[in-house]
């Protein structure tokens, strides 16, 4: 068995809402795998089914060979879940939270205390360990929550949006921790809305949209799959951007990304010749170009090309 997680035609409906419409996944043991998609795409539903918190309405899923419905208890013994909202008891101290989980897993009091101390150190919480968790920052809470998932090192760790709402420094810390956990041999399945997060951590990823996998592969494969390079033009003057957009559109037809930067125009180009054509059109019209680059598309652009909308746009469909 080389796959830690396998799903076939996984479906889930909440009344009339079809959260998942047939998801097939095969996640290799020991890998870090990303589920990428906007809010409401169905990522959380997949994780909750795999962690035995939800029953699928159709299809099947196994974790380490155990069916998540028929053999839920065996699955629970091998996985840990860190949910979207830091699930720590805010009234308790960080240490007590970890001892609590240790005891629930069957450690003796002494072992549970020792493990709590070790984990507080691993997660950079040694000094804050005896403070109530309600006094923790978002990043500290998240680290404590992930720590609670490692009291017994799981074979599979689910991290549902592990860095949502964190500042950049905390985010980097969580990324580093995920790498270290993966280095212990744990298979990590993480969901994220941030494409750079998947790019940073995950060896392979599935792009999820409206309850379906719309693309799957390594970051490189996904970038190659849209079969084009990305042209980035940096302007000298933001006031010229509307004019520049118009010109680029005239040369390329569609393929212009609605980029956010006020000084940038990004577009999909099929060949270097197209890039040259854009450059000369801009020059002829007197639009001053500060910088020009042709490179791999970012995952944002991949997402846009696949779904026709930017990754961060929240979809109306709710994730229960």
């Amino acid at each position: 068995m080389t796959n830690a997680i396998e799903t076939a035609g996984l479906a889930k409906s909440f009344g009339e809402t079809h959260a998942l419409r047939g998801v097939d996944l095969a996640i290799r043991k020991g890998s870090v795998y990303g589920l990428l998609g906007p809010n409401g795409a169905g990522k959380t539903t997949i994780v909750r089914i795999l962690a035995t918190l939800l029953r699928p309405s159709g299809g099947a899923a196994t974790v380490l060979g155990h069916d998540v419905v028929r053999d839920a208890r065996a699955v629970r013994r091998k996985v840990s879940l860190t949910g979207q909202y830091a699930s720590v008891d805010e009234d308790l101290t960080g240490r007590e939270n970890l001892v609590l989980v240790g005891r629930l897993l069957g450690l003796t009091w002494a072992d549970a205390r020792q493990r709590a101390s070790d984990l507080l150190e691993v997660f950079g919480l040694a000094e804050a360990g005896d403070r109530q968790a309600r006094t923790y920052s978002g990043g500290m809470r998240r680290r404590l929550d992930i720590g609670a998932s490692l009291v017994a090192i799981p074979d599979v760790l689910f991290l549902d949006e592990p860095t949502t709402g964190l500042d950049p420094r905390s985010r980097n810390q969580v990324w580093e921790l995920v790498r270290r956990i993966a280095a212990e041999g744990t298979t990590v399945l993480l969901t994220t809305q941030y494409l750079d997060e998947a790019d940073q951590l995950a060896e392979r990823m599935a792009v999820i949209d409206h309850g379906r996998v719309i693309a799957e592969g390594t970051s490189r494969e996904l970038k190659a799959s849209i079969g084009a390079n990305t042209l980035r033009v940096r302007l000298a003057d933001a006031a010229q951007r509307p004019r520049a957009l118009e010109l680029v559109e005239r040369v390329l037809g569609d393929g212009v990304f609605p980029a956010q930067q006020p000084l940038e125009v990004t577009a999909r180009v099929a060949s270097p010749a197209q890039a040259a054509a854009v450059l000369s059109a801009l020059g002829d019209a007197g639009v001053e170009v500060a910088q020009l680059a042709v490179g791999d598309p970012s995952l944002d652009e991949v997402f846009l090309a696949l779904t026709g909308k930017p990754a961060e746009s929240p979809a109306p469909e709710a994730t229960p």
Partner: protein
Amino acid sequence: MSNDALPTGERTHELLARQVRPQPASSLSTVITLAWRAMLKIKHVPFQLFDVTVTPIMFTLLFTYIFGGALAGSPREYIQYLLPGIVVQTIVFITVYTGVGLNTDIQKGLYDRFRSLPIWQPSPLLGALLGDLFRYSVATALILIIGFLLGFRPDGGALGVLAAVGLVLVFAFALSWLWIIIGMLVRTPESVMTTSFVFLMPLTFASDIFVGLSTMPGWLQTAVGNNPVTFLASASRKLMHGHPAGDDVVRVLISTAIILAIAVPTATRLYRKER
């Protein structure tokens, strides 16, 4: 900000690898662990106890001194009648916190963690209830102490008082299951409070906690006389004062059994239901 820096990768590996492979915990041990959690919450947020004891103390003082003279001739006489009922009222009211606590845990995602652990699934519910029983006992002790200071002298002695308290705890345990159901059905801890008070206000005030049944109009006597809280208040009064309480105790136990028979299966089903 170096105080929360991560250790080196090597140290991390060393610490993580030091895990002890646990043996699955027994149901009893998980329930006790979760009750321990409830105790810790009381330790860290002692206001929880303050909160549930100030109101009854206020009630005792107000009723004893304002109405005592009119209702029973003197405050000292009235408190002999009132105090056992105040214990009942207090405990019945604070059972709501079981539902509030459960709802908070669900909202905070803590129940997701518990449910994804390889533990006996009802342990979080039972652990919380066990912790609550401790809270009820502390609240009861506090009210009894205030009562003694105000001149409450139970003729039934320590044994009578203990029997009454035990009966109140049994009933409270059953009643808590109702609020567990509400805690799982509504969205916020605040609505658990408001929803339960709709039931609790009539349950406690339309009882014989404050005045005897014989002072009420006939139709009301029928309603109040069949209120389980009235059974409990009557039984407690009789037990504390050493009067024969057999009938009332039986009625309380039957009410308790009925509540449990309905609420426990419903609550467990809801708990297993995904959300």
